[in-house]
């Protein structure tokens, strides 16, 4: 038996809920076929989530899932360019024409899909991005130097959350694209980080669970970390990562959205309309963090 898990036509951090809804029971009672044949576009959040799913199944010892690649011209090629396929072929049995395109760090892909296993990976990612992407962030998005530095700090902290809290490896990607509707064509830089680790609730259970009693759950756990800056460590210096990201985003009208388990909590700037707290979502493994930094408003 194989369960078909449809991938939405547009896969992003919100439509990930549809992908999660297709997973069925967890652990799966049958082999999964992740069907992206009709997918036309994916944000970096979609890419890292797909790999997280593959990794979660591998860590379960489940049968290797299948992944049907997009058929729309150029889409699978873009997936290759974004570094998705080189990792996906380790985690999925790929179906469809696999483009042999090289991974590309161009103006829209600041950081191709990259695995995060340890602190050394985070150092490499931040160093590489700082070295190569600074000019793009400054010139294409019109970000000031101080905003670019904060971007690097936020990337570092988001990636470190995996090393410090997930208990397993994770994935990161950084892209630039245009928000035509929400920001009238302004460019944004998006950091997407995902892991299939223990999630926010389990990470904070031992130290925070009792405080909240019946109210304790995925949404409360994300809020505890994101809004109140509380970490599972009692060390007063801990919990600075998300707090620092939040401070940075508040200053530059950025957005952060965190999904873990069955909840998603977002700090939403005025330009966006994502609900700040969603509960009872279909379960998805681990945690997914999406950070959006808008570029400057340019007169046309």
């Amino acid at each position, binding site marked *: 038996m194989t369960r078909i898990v449809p991938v939405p036509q547009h896969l992003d951090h919100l439509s990930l809920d549809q992908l999660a809804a297709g997973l069925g029971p967890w652990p799966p009672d049958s082999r999964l076929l992740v069907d992206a044949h009709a997918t036309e576009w994916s944000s970096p959040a979609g890419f890292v989530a797909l790999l997280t799913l593959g990794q979660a199944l591998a860590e379960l010892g489940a049968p290797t899932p299948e992944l049907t690649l997009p058929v729309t011209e150029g889409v699978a090629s873009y997936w290759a360019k974004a570094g998705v396929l080189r990792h996906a072929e380790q985690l999925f049995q790929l179906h469809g024409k696999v483009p042999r395109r090289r991974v590309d760090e161009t103006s829209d892909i600041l950081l191709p899909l990259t695995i995060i296993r340890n*602190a*050394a990976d*985070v*150092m*490499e990612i*931040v*160093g590489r991005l*700082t*070295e190569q992407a600074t000019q793009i962030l400054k010139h294409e998005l019109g970000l000031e130097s*101080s905003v670019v*530095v*904060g971007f*690097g*700090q936020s990337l*570092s*902290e988001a990636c*470190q959350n995996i*090393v*410090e809290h997930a208990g397993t490896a994770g994935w990161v990607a950084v892209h630039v694209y245009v928000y035509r509707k929400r920001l009238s064509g302004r460019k944004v830089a998006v950091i997407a980080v995902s892991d299939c680790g223990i999630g926010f609730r389990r990470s904070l259970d031992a130290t925070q669970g009792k405080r909240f009693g019946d109210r304790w759950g995925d949404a409360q756990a994300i809020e505890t970390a994101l809004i109140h800056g509380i970490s599972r460590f009692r060390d*007063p*210096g*801990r919990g*600075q*990562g998300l*707090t*620092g990201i939040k*401070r940075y985003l508040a200053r530059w009208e950025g957005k952060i959205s965190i999904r873990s388990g069955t909840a998603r909590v977002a700090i939403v700037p005025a330009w966006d309309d994502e609900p700040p707290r969603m509960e009872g979502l279909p379960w998805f493994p681990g945690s997914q963090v999406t950070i959006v930094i808008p570029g400057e408003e340019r007169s046309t």
Partner: protein
Amino acid sequence: MSAIIRLDIVLHETVATAYCDLVTRPTGAAVRHRVITVLRGLPDDNAELDFSEVGLMDFSCADEVVAKLLVETIGLRIPRLRLRGVRDHHAEAIQFALARYDLVIVAVLAASPEPMLLGSAPEDWRTAFRALTRLGRAPALPVAEVLAWPVDRTVDALHGLANHRCVVEHPDATFEPGAAA
């Protein structure tokens, strides 16, 4: 005399990296341990951590390298520990890291030779520190006169700064902001 510890060099002695960024907690902890080893080997000297060649520093590293360093060096015989070559984003990360512990440190920013306090310091401390910096080594009275404060208030502020190793209190009841000031 001040011993200058270049953090970019310590970073490369400690961690195999091609970059000059202070990022991640394990890196920050490793750099801090190395700095403490260097500090232990110094005579009873002032010490300055030099950020001039450090690239990006994240919030976790600010906690590990500066805040926890201050906590762990309380027992060491260093009259003053200062930061230099600090850029704005370093300063901001350090400011927030120190505030969590109620700690304060003297820093000289890359953009300005004027030393300043980073971290959790009452406004009186900051004002007294600026006045002492302008005066150089001085007893409390001239500082009080410059600020038009009662002497008790001035002494309280200067003692607070001395207890946090932001200034040195000499046996002759003078206070000194230090060589960098």
